[in-house]
């Protein structure tokens, strides 16, 4: 079998597909697996395993040819044709497009293969997804961030599904080390203090809005130096960041002579960064490609999720990792928007004291969700959101450290689980028999999330939740029946208008309940669509209601199943983390 995996995005996005690549390799040990990436990321070839070849798409050359008046007119086309012809000569059996943008969709449409998964445009421009997880990824753009599934888990879902019991060692060390990387790392380690902890800092990000600020990083190092004797701090960066890193290290050395701390500039290649991360004890970083590398490595992460960084979609996905974000109402902001605040409030809202405390506690123990840590960190609850990544259910779930047992928090937790199960059902990988395992895993997460609540309180709120859902069930059923009656006469604008009015009314009633307001999102998209033809609009309504009913059914089953669980029996399975 010959498989082509396409990922024409950036380093972090490529790393996010590593779990899926590993799964492909495990399921098809003798297959030829090729990975197509942009040529500007050719330097990643050494660290990506599980594939036989990394092929390069020369996007820069084609783009340059198109816009440069001195280049032959049809050169860009000819370059692209060579690429497509070359790929078609390989005779792929399957293509998987993890890029999910229009360019890749058109490109994958041109490459011949028996099966195609991911966004693909055919010759008429019609789109196909090939797997419900890719359709979910497409729809996720409209989903509230708190219910979103991490992209790496969507890709793994498309590769293998989430119905089976997750293998805890599957995510260990997904990256490959190279001789060059090890050599660079060893050169740095010679300057490290012996028998002391090793901290890695990534100061810069690709977007100013995501930066925490060098002053705050310096304050963090001061605090950690006084706590950890013989601390070594590696300040990581690319060659174009040399000046900044050197200044940072010099300032630190000049102002902190009281402690035995080694501050070492670590300007290394990507391969060197991989090896250094594997040899170090903890990383503090913003939303960067280094963060994604570390998520695929074994090093624990404290991620500073600022600006447009999204905790749920693209945050770290390794169990035990910590993601800290601001409580500012504007966070996360849009990618291409400038910050409109008077100062960088989301960064200012994360004090060095909090980050230092998180680093110290995470280095002491991977069980940050344990009672003693939560109590000690509660003083920061008003300042920042702290999430700890948990994988008890399979997909990464950033659990809020300070969440209380409320209707909304419980609904949010169950909604995420229901969305995953709904996609699995559509893919045919989840049956009635799988509910037992799903309920058991949800119970573990429930106990981790609301560790302080008694079994009685948990069961009580679950039963109240079930009652609310029954109410919503009735509303949706009425709406579905009304649409069924209209189906034959969808061209009649009057009847269609009545259905829209009913949707709006249902939406309003669902919004009145804190735990049912999630369901109103799906109806909003349909109500606000005034561009689609009547038949298409009706079809979208039917699909939305089918999805809502499926999710309602799943949540009701989860609630019923959870009500029968004894939560304390999961004490021994509570906590996990890598190091």
């Amino acid at each position: 079998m010959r498989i082509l995996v396409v990922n024409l995005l950036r380093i972090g996005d490529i790393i996010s597909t590593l779990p899926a690549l590993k799964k492909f390799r495990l399921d098809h040990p003798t297959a030829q697996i090729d990975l197509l990436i942009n040529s500007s990321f050719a330097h990643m070839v050494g660290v990506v395993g599980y594939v036989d070849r990394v092929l390069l798409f020369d996007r820069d050359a084609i783009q340059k040819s198109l816009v440069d008046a001195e280049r032959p007119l049809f050169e860009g086309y000819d370059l692209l044709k060579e690429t497509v012809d070359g790929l078609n000569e390989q005779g792929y059996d399957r293509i998987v497009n993890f890029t999910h943008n229009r360019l890749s969709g058109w490109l994958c449409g041109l490459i011949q293969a028996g099966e195609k998964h991911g966004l693909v445009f055919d010759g008429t421009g019609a789109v196909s997804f090939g797997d419900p997880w890719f359709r979910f990824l497409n729809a996720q753009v409209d989903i509230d961030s708190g219910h979103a599934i991490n992209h790496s888990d969507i890709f793994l879902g498309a590769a293998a599904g989430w119905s089976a019991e997750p293998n805890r060692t599957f995510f260990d060390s997904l990256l490959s080390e190279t001789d060059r990387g090890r050599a660079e790392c060893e050169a740095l380690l010679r300057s490290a203090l012996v028998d002391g902890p090793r901290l890695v800092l990534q100061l810069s990000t690709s977007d100013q809005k995501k930066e925490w600020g060098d002053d705050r990083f310096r304050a963090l190092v001061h605090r950690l130096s006084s706590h950890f004797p013989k601390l070594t701090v590696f300040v990581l960066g690319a060659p174009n960041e040399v000046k900044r890193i050197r200044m940072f290290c010099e300032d630190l050395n000049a102002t902190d002579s009281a402690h035995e701390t080694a501050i070492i500039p670590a300007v290394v290649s990507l391969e060197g960064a991989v090896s250094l991360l594997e040899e170090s004890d903890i990383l503090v970083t913003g939303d960067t490609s280094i963060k994604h590398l570390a998520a695929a490595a074994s090093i624990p992460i404290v991620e500073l999720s600022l600006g447009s960084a999204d905790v749920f979609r693209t945050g770290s996905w390794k169990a035990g990792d910590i993601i800290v974000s601001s409580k500012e109402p504007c966070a996360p902001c849009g990618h291409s928007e400038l910050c409109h605040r008077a100062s960088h409030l989301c960064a200012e809202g994360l004090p060095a004291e909090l980050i230092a405390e998180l680093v110290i506690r995470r280095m002491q123990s991977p069980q940050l969700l344990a009672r003693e840590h939560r109590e000690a960190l509660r003083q920061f609850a008003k300042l920042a959101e702290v999430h700890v990544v948990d994988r008890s259910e399979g997909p990464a779930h950033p659990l809020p450290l300070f969440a209380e047992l409320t209707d909304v928090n419980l609904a949010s937790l169950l909604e995420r689980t229901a969305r995953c199960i709904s996609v699995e059902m559509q893919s045919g990988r989840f049956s009635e028999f799988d509910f037992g395992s799903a309920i058991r895993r949800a119970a573990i997460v429930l106990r981790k999330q609301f560790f302080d609540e008694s079994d009685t309180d948990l069961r009580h709120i679950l039963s109240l939740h079930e009652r609310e859902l029954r109410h919503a069930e009735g509303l949706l059923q009425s709406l579905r029946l009304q649409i069924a009656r209209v189906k034959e006469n969808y061209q009649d604008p009057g009847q269609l208008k009545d259905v829209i009015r009913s949707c709006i009314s249902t939406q309003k009633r669902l919004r009145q309940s804190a735990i049912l307001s999630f369901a109103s999102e799906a109806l909003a998209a349909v109500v606000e669509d005034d561009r689609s033809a009547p038949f298409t609009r009706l079809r979208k309504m039917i699909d939305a209601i089918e999805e809502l009913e499926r999710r309602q059914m799943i949540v009701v089953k989860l609630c019923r199943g959870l009500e029968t669980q004894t939560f304390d029996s999961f004490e021994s399975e509570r906590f996990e983390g890598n190091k």
Partner: protein
Amino acid sequence: MGPEVQIHQAKSGLPVLIVRGCATASSVDPMAEAERWFKQIEPQVRDLPETARVGVLGLGSGYHLEVLSREVKHQIIAFDSDPALAAAREWFVGRFPSHVSLKFVSVEAGAASFFADDDVRTFISNRIVLLRHKPSFLRDQRGLTALGNWLTGRDRSSLNAHLQSRADFSALLDCDRQNGEWLLSVKDVSRLWKVEAEVSEQRRMFRILEELVR
């Protein structure tokens, strides 16, 4: 040689052509200058497919062509529009291997005669890589610029010639044709990247190119 052309010796000992008082290559070490030029353009010519052709604008004193033909085994066609160099063509005879050919072109004769040449038509109907020999280019800007525009298809008269040589593109354009000529300007080139999606493979390729120029 012609009255406008003389031969001087560079400091390295190699001969250099002087045209109307201007040196066509380095008067210090023309071979080293040619090697440096090749290093600059090397990314454009490495890993070319067999059918690709390499065009060079400007003959200079020929050293850059010597280096290029040593490193690249594809068909190379070198163009120059300076009549003084055309008169000195014996300077270049026998210096290059068989896969290099020279074309002396008069821009005064116009694009039509340029595109009537069989070699030129074959050249532009295949994948071409166009390189510039800087010193010559600077010296005779008008003529070589015109040649460059014709070869890249970036002026109106050459655009039609290119379309006539590339049936795959001309088939995509739904625009007026009069007397065998498309009524297009260079600005219309942008339309090529915005062709509406149809069944054909070429149109899907153009959708990709459109995404890249967004």
